[in-house]
């Protein structure tokens, strides 16, 4: 946070300088402390890249192989650093290739600033070469977007973009810049802003609601805290810990809340939702007080809303007012930043413990351990399981690596079996469930935190969706360690076909290429293992290595992820097999 003040101070007072719009854009990025850009050049963004050429010592540009790779990398970067990720693309196809990443970032509250080139202002609307109405296309999947048609707008719009993207509930911003605006000259003067009319990023916490919440917490017998990504976004991990420890509140995490709270903590009860842990799901419908913090009661968490925690009072701490009462009706709503709300709440709650209630979580966990976990983590024989790969990785890295995943069974296995001990260590596509997210996101994470071990877990389906980014990883020698859990299936869909579509495996089995040759062809060294006895050594070798590596692990073809709440099912009726 301190750097921001400095940059704002430094950016504030500078005499106007004459320059092109393209250079002004680069200068604006520097004024906001940007150090890394992910992008792909093309006709309508060429002036910007030409200006960038003079600043390559200050701004690292990562040339990806496809714009989708650029935006997922920017997402990985943004979520690890908690500051906006930057993308450059050209107009038309360059810009439309961002759509999946924008939708993903919108759902997962990720701050991004995507600069898209656009045809000259005089050609707008004429179906010019590589012209797409990007502002309209991206409207429902951006927090804000804007088209710049004159150079002089650039500094002000960029300042606004940075403020909007990273304040309040963060989100993606698209700035579309016509080619003429990149060429034209302006008197450049930059002033960072923290005010945009009509926009209140942090609503003022109403003390009366805090009081009511404290009262419910002090009076409850069977509380359950739902930890969401909002806790990490607001940097409230310490306050969160203090809060739950003081009142002895059991904690369950959403998928994106993972790593904000150490998994070995005595109050941690596991992950919520469809493939989460048994105890928190069952006890959701037994608790008398549910406290959601920085989360949005997504349908993968709640299952059937009509049977979701009907017996409980609900407190919802959430910065986005439109999330309050959207899915689950609250008894007390604190519309505020998580950190601020927790700071106010902590002194008002009484020291407490809920030993008996906590014991019920342990009992339920025992059932899950016996029926599911033990078999996943220590399968007696046969092919390797995804769970044991993740568990071994967790042990070898002591839960201190950054885990990036793609989407599917391997993602759920990673979420369930990696024992997170450090904050900001889990990067996964939650709301949108974007296959192909993992590898490029891992690149962004590697650039944001080069000093930490980074593992990308990916399935054989998702691997092939953004496989071209292995080229980027090799070119920049990014320390991304890829673990490809290969079951020759789109495993999660196959599991659903097995359970809900009478084993009719329609379009889920893959005839895969030789992944070692592919990886090595791109310049990323690789290895394949299929025997349990080789697992530990292979992972350890990978961990000890400096550069990128790809380890293909052949796993059980038809393994399933359990427990499971079927879509639209009741959380307390979670299936163990």
């Amino acid at each position, binding site marked *: 946070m301190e750097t921001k003040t400095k940059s704002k101070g430094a950016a504030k007072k500078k005499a106007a300088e004459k320059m092109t719009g393209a250079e002004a854009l680069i200068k604006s990025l520097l004024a906001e402390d940007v150090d890394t850009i992910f992008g792909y050049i093309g006709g309508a963004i060429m002036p910007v890249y030409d200006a960038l050429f003079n600043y390559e010592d200050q701004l690292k540009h990562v040339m990806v192989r496809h714009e989708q790779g650029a935006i997922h990398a920017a997402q990985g970067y943004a979520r690890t650093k908690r500051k906006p990720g930057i993308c450059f693309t050209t107009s038309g196809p360059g810009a439309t290739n961002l759509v999946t990443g924008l939708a993903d970032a919108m759902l997962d509250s990720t701050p991004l600033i995507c600069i898209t080139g656009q045809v000259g202002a005089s050609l707008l609307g004429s179906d010019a070469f590589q012209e797409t109405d990007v502002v309209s296309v991206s409207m429902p999947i951006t927090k804000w*977007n804007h088209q710049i048609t004159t150079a002089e707008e650039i500094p002000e719009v960029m300042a606004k973009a940075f403020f909007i993207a990273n304040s309040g509930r963060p989100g993606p911003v698209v700035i579309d810049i016509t080619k003429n605006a990149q060429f034209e000259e302006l008197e450049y003067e930059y002033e960072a802003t*923290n005010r945009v009319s*009509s926009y209140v990023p942090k609503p003022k916490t109403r003390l009366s609601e805090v009081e009511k919440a404290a009262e419910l917490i002090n009076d409850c017998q069977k509380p359950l805290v739902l930890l969401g990504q909002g806790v990490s976004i607001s940097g409230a991990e310490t306050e969160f810990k203090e809060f739950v420890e003081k009142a002895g509140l059991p904690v369950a995490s959403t998928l994106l809340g993972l790593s904000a709270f150490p998994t070995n903590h005595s109050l941690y009860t596991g992950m919520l939702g469809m493939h989460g842990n048994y105890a928190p799901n069952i006890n959701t419908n037994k608790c008398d007080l549910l406290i959601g913090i920085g989360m949005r009661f997504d349908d993968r968490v709640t299952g059937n809303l009509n049977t979701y925690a009907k017996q409980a009072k609900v407190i919802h701490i959430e910065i986005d007012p439109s999330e309050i009462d959207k899915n689950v009706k609250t008894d007390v709503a604190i519309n505020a930043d998580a950190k601020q709300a927790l700071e106010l709440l902590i002194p008002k709650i009484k020291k407490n413990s809920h030993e008996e209630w906590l014991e019920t979580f342990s009992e339920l966990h025992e059932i899950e351990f016996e029926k599911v976990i033990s078999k996943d983590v220590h399968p007696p024989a046969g092919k390797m399981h995804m769970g044991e790969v993740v568990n071994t990785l967790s042990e070898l890295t002591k839960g201190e690596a950054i885990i990036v995943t793609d989407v599917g069974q391997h993602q759920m296995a990673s979420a369930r079996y990696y024992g997170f001990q450090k904050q900001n260590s889990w990067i996964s596509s939650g709301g949108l469930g974007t296959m192909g997210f993992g590898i490029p996101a891992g690149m962004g994470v590697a650039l944001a935190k080069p000093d930490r071990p980074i593992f990308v877990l990916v399935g054989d389906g998702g691997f092939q969706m953004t496989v071209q980014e292995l080229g980027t990883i090799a070119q920049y020698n990014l320390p991304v360690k890829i673990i490809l859990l290969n079951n020759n299936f789109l495993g999660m869909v196959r599991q659903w076909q097995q359970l809900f579509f009478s084993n009719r495996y329609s379009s889920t089995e893959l005839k895969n290429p030789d992944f070692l040759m592919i990886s090595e062809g791109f310049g990323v060294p690789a290895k394949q293992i299929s025997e349990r006895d080789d697992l530990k050594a292979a992972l350890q070798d990978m961990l000890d290595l400096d550069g990128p590596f790809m380890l293909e692990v052949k796993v059980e073809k038809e393994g399933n992820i359990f427990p499971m709440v079927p879509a639209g099912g009741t959380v307390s009726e979670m299936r163990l097999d």
Partner: protein
Amino acid sequence: MKKEYTLTIFTENKIGLLHRITVIFTRRHLNIDSLNTSESEIRGIYRFTIVVSTTETMVQTVTKQIEKQIGILKAFYHTEEEIVYQEIALYKVPTKAFAHGDDVESLIRKFNARVLTIEPEYIVVEKTGHKTETQQLFRELESYGILQFARSGRIALTKQIREITSYLKELEQQQKESEEEVLTYN
């Protein structure tokens, strides 16, 4: 239970805001019954009036989702009892319809409508009122042959005492506090 709600939305004058508002209805598969926009009593601030039939839970969520868009200052929803509203309708009828006795004339008197223009071939009648009223006149005129008909979107003012200027002041105050806080955090 579905009911008719009138949304009043105050916005800045920015390109694309109409689109940002309408996609929120589209996502929820909600049909907009009527939409009107004009500058409000404050220069540079625009007032959207949107009529939609849906449940209260839905209109509540949609209103919040609209209000959070950048460029939207404030959004409210109201039931019929909470607003004073009006619509305008224009009817183009053949002039010969007036030739048979005084039927049409008495209709116009009865409905408190007025004649805007008289041409040799047609007459344009204007009627302001609620939809039920303008629709009733439509039905009455139908037998004389309506050449063209158009009805405007609803415009509405709220009965509430608190005016938008007071909300805007509050918004400004909130921003100021939020700004100060960002500064202290930094």
